[in-house]
C-alpha cells in the first residue's frame, strides 16, 4: 500500500451549468487527519458525495488505494474501506441505538433470506459477536447508557456520535466526517476529538470538513481549502493562518453570510 490513501484527479461536479466542484486534485496522505475548510456553499459536501459514490462526477477520477473507483456505488466503496458521516445526520430513527450500530458490519449471514430463515449456530454466533462489538463501540463513543433508546430521540450531538459509532463498526481504513462538531456541545466535541485521535493512532486516515477553526488548527494537518468549487489552498495549519487569500475567501464569505 502506498502513502496515498485516496486521491482525486481533476474531479469536477456540475449541477446543470453550475460548477460545484471544479477540477479538484487532492492526495490524501495515509494515516493523516486532513482538514477540509471553506465557506458555506464552497462544494465541500458535494466533494464528499463524489468521493463516496453518492454523486457521479461530471469529469475527473477518484482513486482508492491506487485503484480507480470513479462511478462505483457507495456500498461498494464502503466494502473497500471508505466510510463517511453526513453533515445532517441520518440515523435510522425508528430503530434502537444498538440496532443502528449492529446494522453496519458487512457480510452478515443473517442478512440473507436463507440465513435468516434457517438461522444456524453460525448465524447466531456471528450475531453475538456483532452485538458484543457494537456495545464496545457504543461505550467508546460514550453512548452505552442509550443502547436501547430510539435513535430518532437522541440529541443532535449524540446523533453525530452515533454516526461515528456506526462507521467504526466496519473498521474502515478511511473515514470522511462532514462537520462532526457542528451543533455538538463542547464536552461531546472533546470526546469526539479524543476518539478521532485514538483511531488515527491505530492507523485510520481521516478527512474532516469543519468550520470550528480551533478544531482544525489543533488537530488537522494538512489543511485544504475549497472556495467556489476550487481548491485554493493546501498546507499546514500555520500556513493556513498566515495565508491572506484564504482569509479573504473565508472571512469575506463568512462576513456576507
Amino acid at each position, binding site marked *: 500500500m502506498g502513502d496515498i490513501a485516496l486521491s482525486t484527479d481533476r474531479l469536477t461536479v456540475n449541477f446543470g451549468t453550475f460548477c460545484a466542484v471544479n477540477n479538484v486534485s487532492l492526495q490524501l496522505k495515509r494515516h493523516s487527519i486532513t482538514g477540509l475548510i471553506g465557506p458555506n456553499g464552497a462544494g465541500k459536501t458535494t466533494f464528499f458525495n463524489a468521493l463516496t459514490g453518492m454523486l457521479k462526477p461530471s469529469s475527473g477520477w477518484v482513486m482508492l488505494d491506487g485503484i480507480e473507483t470513479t462511478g462505483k456505488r*457507495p456500498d461498494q466503496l464502503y466494502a473497500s474501506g471508505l466510510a463517511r458521516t453526513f453533515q445532517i445526520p441520518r440515523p435510522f430513527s425508528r*430503530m434502537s441505538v444498538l440496532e443502528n450500530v449492529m446494522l453496519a458490519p458487512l457480510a452478515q449471514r443473517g442478512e440473507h433470506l436463507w*440465513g435468516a430463515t434457517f438461522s444456524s449456530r453460525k448465524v447466531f454466533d456471528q450475531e453475538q459477536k456483532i452485538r458484543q462489538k457494537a456495545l464496545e463501540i457504543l461505550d467508546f463513543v460514550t453512548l452505552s447508557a442509550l443502547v436501547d433508546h430510539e435513535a430518532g430521540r437522541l440529541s443532535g450531538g449524540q446523533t453525530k456520535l452515533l454516526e461515528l459509532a456506526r462507521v467504526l463498526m466496519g473498521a474502515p481504513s478511511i473515514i470522511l466526517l462532514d462537520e462532526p462538531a457542528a451543533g455538538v456541545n463542547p464536552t461531546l466535541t472533546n470526546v469526539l476529538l479524543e476518539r478521532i485521535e485514538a483511531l488515527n493512532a491505530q492507523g485510520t486516515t481521516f478527512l474532516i470538513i469543519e468550520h470550528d477553526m480551533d478544531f482544525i488548527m489543533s488537530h488537522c494537518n494538512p489543511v485544504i481549502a475549497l472556495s467556489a468549487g476550487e481548491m485554493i489552498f493546501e498546507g499546514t495549519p500555520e500556513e493556513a493562518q498566515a495565508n491572506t487569500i484564504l482569509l479573504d475567501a473565508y472571512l469575506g464569505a463568512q462576513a456576507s453570510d
Partner: protein
Amino acid sequence: MIGVISYLVFFTTIAAILAIAVLGLNLQWGNTGLFNGGVAAFFGAGAYATILLGGTPQGEHIGGFEIFYPLALAGGALCAGLLAWMVGLLTLKLRHDYLAIATFGVAVAFESFVRNTSVMTGGALGLRGFERPLEALIENPFLYNILFLLVVVLVLASVYVFLQKLLHAPFGRLLRAIREDETAAQSLGKNPSEVRLTAFIVGSVIMGLAGGLYATFYAFISPQDVVPTLTFQIWAMLIVGGAGNNLGALVGTFLIWAVWTGSGWCLSKYAPVEAQIYTGTLQYILIGAIIVSMLLWRPQGIFPEKLVISQSGD
C-alpha cells in the same frame, strides 16, 4: 346453534386467509416501507394460478393441470412471486407515492387481463368447478369446513412464525434500515435495490398464498374477487392493526373483517329496502372513516411497532 358455529367457522376462515395477505403487506410496507397499491394483483395471481394448476380440464380452456393440491398452492404463490419479480425490476426504483401509483396500475391491468383472457381465466365469469382437495372423501360439509379452517390456521401460524423469525434476524434489521433511510444504509455497505426486491417478492408470495387458499375455499375465482376493493380492505386492516407489528396485523384483520361483515349484516337486516342497494357503498364509507380517524388519532395503529432492544431475542 349449528348455524351460528357454521357461520363463525366461515367468518374465521376468510379472516385468517385475509390475515395471511395482511402479513405479506406488513413485510412490504410495515417493515420495508414499500407502498404496494396493487395487493389485489398478487393475491389474484396466486388465486388464479392455484386453480389453473390444480383444477380439472374444462373444455376448451387452457389450464386444469390436475397437479397435486399442495404443489398447486405452492405454484400459485410462486406465480405471484414471479409477477412481483417482474413488477419489482421495473418499479422498485420508484419512491413511495410513485410506487403506489405504479403498483395500483399493475392491479388494474391484472384485473383487465383476467377479465379479457377468457380462454384461460374464464373472463368475467371466472373459473368454476374446482374440486377441493379431499372433498370427495369427507361427505359432511360442516366437517369439511372445520378441517379447511384448521389447515388455513396452520398456514397462517407458519407464515407468522416465519416472518417473526425474519424480523428478529439481521434480515429484519436490514429491512427497517432501508425503510428508515436508504441513503444511510447504502453508505454502510447495503444494497437497497436488492433488499427492496427481496422484500417485495417475499411479501407478494405470501399474498399469493392467501389468494390460493381463498380461491380453494370458494372453489371459484372471478375478476370480481381481485378488484381494488380488496387492496383497500387489506390496507385498512394493516393501518388499523399497526403497521410494522405482525400481531397488530392479525388483530386489525379480524377487527376490520368483523366491522365489514357486521355492518353488511346490520344493513341487510335493519336498513330500509331502498337503502340496501347502497350497502357496499356504506361499508366503504364506514371503513374509510375508520382509517381516517385512525390516521388522525393513532397513526401507529392499535399495536404500534415495538423497538427491538438488546434484551430481546436471547
